[in-house]
């Protein structure tokens, strides 16, 4: 036990002097400035812990356009990567920050329609549509979070759900802009100079790089000062507030970042599909995203990858038994929540440790 006399200057291992008067006042309380750690502390690496493994997985996926038997498989992988972004950003809100959002498909839709309408109705390039979609998703989340996050958890769930329901009505009814229930046609693909990314194989590279960037950003975030503070809120909001964390602002920022990421996924979806229609973004898809977060493992960085894989693969496997799909998802969710709260990612972790 180190005993630093109250009058001594802070030892070398102590925190650097911070801004203001407060610190002068604090110097008297030597109790907060313990001696430097005797044991070595693992230094934070340039790459966040899970970012490296994401890079490896994404590197393996480079093979997809070359080994895929047909374009359909590539299109499924594209969809998978888009849903990875969606589910991972929702996991940030639900799994890490502990807030239930039921409007994630709505933010996805805001991004898709923003980017799609700018392209189809105003002839803007998707390269501008993509940031615009991020802005639309982020702004949507910010606006709804601004009042809702001041209140207890279920208010956010209700507010996001209501917001999502209203968005769907707007997508359906603002026909001159959105094309209504028939969907929005005439969306242009991304283009690199003269080369249009209008096939599944070419647009794959864009989806691949954007999804990797988003996943690295999430891995970085979770392992940072702000990320720890938002995870602290997920652990105990009272505890977080007692450490000086402005829980409201932190939740709001998390929510807006997740909304922006959903918007990015929406823009990719619009320009990969070249068509969007309201049912993709309704409340039920929002609930399915929630299911996939839970299945993959709430608050697990790898969870969304498993969740998205299940979400894309199961309907392909059950092609002839499509009616069973929903039942299977529902049962799987119940089994995971009751028996394996850490989800598929948690199971995978368990196996890895067991193999070692």
């Amino acid at each position: 036990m180190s005993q630093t006399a109250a009058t001594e200057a802070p030892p070398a291992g102590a925190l650097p002097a911070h801004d203001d008067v407060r610190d002068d006042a604090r110097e008297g309380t030597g109790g907060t400035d313990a001696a430097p750690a005797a044991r070595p502390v693992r230094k934070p690496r340039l790459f966040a812990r899970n970012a490296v493994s994401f890079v490896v997985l994404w590197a393996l996926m480079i093979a997809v356009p070359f080994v895929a038997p047909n374009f359909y498989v590539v299109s499924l992988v594209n969809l998978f990567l888009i849903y990875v972004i969606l589910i991972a950003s929702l996991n940030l809100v639900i799994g890490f920050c502990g807030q239930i959002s039921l409007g994630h498909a709505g933010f996805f839709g805001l991004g898709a329609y923003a980017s799609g309408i700018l392209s189809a109705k105003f002839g803007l390039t998707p390269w501008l549509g993509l940031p615009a979609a991020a802005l639309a998703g982020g702004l949507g989340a910010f606006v709804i979070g601004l009042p809702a996050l001041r209140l207890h958890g279920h208010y956010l769930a209700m507010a996001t759900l209501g917001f999502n329901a209203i968005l769907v009505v707007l997508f359906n009814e603002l026909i001159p802009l959105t094309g209504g229930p028939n969907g929005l046609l005439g969306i242009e693909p991304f283009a690199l100079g003269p080369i249009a990314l209008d096939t599944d194989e070419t647009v794959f590279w864009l989806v691949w790089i954007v999804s990797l960037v988003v996943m690295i950003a999430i891995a970085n975030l979770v392992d940072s000062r702000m990320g720890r503070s938002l995870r602290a809120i997920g652990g105990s909001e009272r505890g977080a507030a007692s450490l000086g964390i402005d829980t409201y602002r932190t939740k709001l920022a998390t929510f807006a970042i997740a909304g922006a990421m959903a918007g990015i996924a929406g823009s990719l979806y619009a320009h990969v599909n070249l068509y969007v229609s309201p049912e993709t973004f309704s409340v039920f898809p929002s609930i399915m995203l929630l299911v996939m977060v839970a299945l993959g493992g709430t608050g697990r960085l790898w969870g969304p990858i498993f969740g998205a894989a299940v979400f894309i693969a199961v309907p392909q496997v059950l092609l002839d038994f499509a009616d069973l799909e929903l039942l299977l998802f529902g049962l799987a969710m119940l089994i995971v929540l009751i028996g394996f709260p850490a989800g598929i990612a948690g199971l995978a972790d368990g196996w890895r440790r067991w193999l070692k």
Partner: protein
Amino acid sequence: MSGESIAAATGDILEVAGLSRNFGAIAAVADLSFKVREGEVKAVIGPNGAGKTTLFDMIAGVTAPSSGRITLAGERIERMPAHKRVDRGIGRTFQTLQIFTEMSVLENVVVGHYPRGHSGWVNALLRLPSGLSEERREREHAMALLERVGLADRANDRAGDLSFGDRKLLELMRALATGPRLLLLDEPAAGLSHAGAERMMEIVAELNADGLSVLLVEHNMRMVMNLSHDILVIGNGRFIAEGTPDAVRTNPDVIAAYLGEDEDA
């Protein structure tokens, strides 16, 4: 700043004046006034339902007072949100543990450095070098704190896997990481074994010896009598007595208040 220098001169870290809190028609705390001197351990005791928790919540900023003043080192804080009070130097632990069970033991203490950190959201998403060096310093400091209570070996374990006693120590170190000038301890010995309580007492005594002021709510009388320089006794939200442990122990009003509780029970 003149207020601060006056406080420094008089040596009061916390001054509570005429503090009240009503829930409907019931006054949970009524017209309480007391001071905590710089470097002092002050205990607040009283029968169950005396208003200790409400008092703590008002000082920490969880509950707004109905009336009255709270002054921390010369600065009025009674209308300040909880997180800003932490910036001003109030650290606290909880009667019901509020640790972050899904984070590692080390991370729990690293989060405690939040008020002194600078790196923001852009830094978080891009993992800039400035954030990394800040994090390295915070980790080292957090590790030193863990070492202080013998939890360094468990640094990478999930915090939820610690024993109850270790979790209490962890919460204390986490509060310490915020760099408090006044530490609010809500029943630090509750639920601990005899040995655990002794350990907790030693640690709190050490922190105090290092100059930290402490406001303590505790039912363990051995801890209260051994640690405190001064004791405030309240009942039904009202002032009953205040003084040194010896003075309080023999105060007839205090004895009556505690006997009264026994009758009710």
